């Protein structure tokens, strides 16, 4: 059984365009993801595809002008706003994007300690700092004094000490050198091996593939494919969706062919399949309606032509 299930999740924002005119921007539409204990799921997609909002939606910390629909379950029970409130920070932890997510006026050691749920907070914080090779002096530093790598490890520490069963990491790798990336990712692996679940939200398909078990490909606010990491190999024959294929082939070590066109803005989504305007395989049928997610070869795909 999945520890975390997200079904038909849609998130939209109310916005005022001109004067009192209201419009709804659908940033996530009909999204499905499952997270199993002991595995790492990488949610991969270009920036602006609504990935961070997925994390915020799961935790229930979207801004007030957002409206959410769909069903999320945690350990088989529905994740209501009240339950989100009770679980966040305890069972589900977030590893945020940047050092801006730390209070600029509080020492980082103390900030990590406030995440500890049970036991001696100072001990727990020192243990995790030791594990991440953060010296004793770091706990007395303020966020602005941390280097990029240190900040990343500090943010990771806040999730580690919480004892959460699910960790959602939002873009944990940008701006780091390859060695540090590898190290950071190995911490997630370690964490998953302890029986927890990790959702790794990233635009970096390459490093995601190094450690993830499953890949969810994200496009224009929804998942287009869920595949095993092994499927991304060779010429990408095993990949199901044309967008994932294109993404794979755009990598330097593969064909290095860029995808033509650009991702549609949430206010101007095409009527049918969201990828159709950029898809070489598109037929008039694709423009009719958004295809449903369907199982295919031990994975899921949102494309009527995929085989």
């Amino acid at each position, binding site marked *: 059984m999945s520890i975390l299930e997200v079904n038909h999740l849609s998130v939209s924002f109310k916005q005022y365009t001109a004067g009192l005119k209201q419009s709804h921007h659908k940033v996530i539409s009909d999204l499905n993801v499952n997270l199993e204990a002991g595995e790492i799921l990488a949610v991969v997609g270009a920036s602006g595809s609504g990935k961070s909002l997925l994390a*915020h939606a799961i*935790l229930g*910390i979207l801004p007030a002008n957002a409206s959410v629909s769909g069903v999320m379950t945690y350990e088989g029970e529905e994740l209501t706003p009240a339950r989100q*409130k*009770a*679980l*966040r*920070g*305890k069972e589900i*932890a*977030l590893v*945020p994007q*940047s050092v*801006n*997510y*730390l*209070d*600029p*006026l*509080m020492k980082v050691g103390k900030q990590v300690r*406030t*995440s500890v749920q049970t036991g001696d907070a100072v001990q727990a914080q020192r243990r995790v700092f030791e594990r991440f090779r953060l010296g004793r002096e770091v706990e007395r530093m*303020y966020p*602005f*004094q941390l280097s990029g790598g240190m900040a990343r490890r500090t943010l990771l520490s*806040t999730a580690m000490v*919480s004892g959460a069963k699910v960790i959602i990491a939002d873009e944990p790798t940008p701006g780091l050198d390859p060695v540090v990336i590898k190290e950071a990712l190995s911490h997630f692996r370690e964490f998953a091996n302890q029986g927890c679940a990790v959702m790794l939200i990233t635009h970096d398909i390459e490093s995601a593939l190094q450690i993830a078990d499953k890949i969810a490909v994200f496009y224009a606010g929804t998942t287009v494919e869920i595949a095993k990491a092994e499927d991304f190999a060779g010429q990408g024959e095993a990949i199901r969706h044309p967008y994932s294929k294109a993404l794979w082939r755009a990598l330097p070590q593969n064909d290095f062919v860029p995808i033509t066109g650009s991702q549609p803005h949430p206010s101007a989504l095409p009527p049918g399949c969201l990828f159709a305007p950029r898809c070489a395989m598109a037929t008039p049928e694709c423009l009719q309606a958004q295809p449903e997610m369907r199982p295919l070869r031990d994975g899921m795909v949102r494309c009527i032509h995929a085989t």
Partner: protein
Amino acid sequence: MVTLLVAICFISFLLVKNSPIDPIQAYIGADMLKVSPEQRAKITEYWGLDQPVMMQFYHWGSAVLSGDMGTSMIYRRPVMEVIGERFTNSLALMLSAWVLSGVIGFVMGIIAAMKKGSWIDRLIKWYCFTLASTPTFWMGLLVLIVFAVWLGWFPVGMGVPAGVLAEDVTLLDRIQHLILPALTLSIVGIANVALHTREKLIDVLASDYVLFARARGKQGMVLFWRHGLRNVALPAITLQFAGFSELFGGAVLAEQVFSYPGLGQATVEAGLRGDVPLLLGIVIFTTIFVFVGNLLADISYRVLDPRTREGRKV
């Protein structure tokens, strides 16, 4: 700062020297008719009024540097002494108003921001905007009408009860005479801090680190206490220190309304009755006062904000 102070001294000096008010007449007052032209010339010579302005400035300036600001014409005492005594009175008034308006304004700003968009937020905002356009002295008059005339809780004026010897004035008397002017100053002073704190806290509440704190299960008062207060208090404290200039302006008016014997009242007296040495002394003194406020604001930032405090170490 030193160049500024020197320039202020010089400009003020030139200004008062060009005043149409005759210092000798101001000094002698109603007895002017009894003074013969010869006596007049003597006084002029004695004060050095016949010398060029630059010379006069030089004499006055060097006296000030050695700590002698001359003698007040209306109080017939050394300027330093008058300022010292009056300022002590004003300080009690300004300090209580400063603390009171700071605390109340801060709390009001926080309440408004925490309940942003609610009726209480709108009420606080409306109150602050209205207060910002309220003449301080009118507020003083209203306070006077309500508390002293209608309710009769407080005396109508004077720093100390009239007709009582200075030694017999108790601390209680002093406090009683302090409350209304301090209240007036506080009511008017709240607006700035409250609006500023509100803006800041709204920014903080929308920040990434508060979002992350919420993601870690923090909420309500704990969240505010840990992450809000600290980040909002710093700008509020700085703002309060930097507001010494307006505080003194308010004190001038409040003291005038309540006939409170502070430095503000002395300023008005000096201006009205042409007491040049006292006026110059007050200009210098208030400049230093404002400067100290700005300095304190600066220091508080340095002491309280780790980004400026420990920035050097990195």
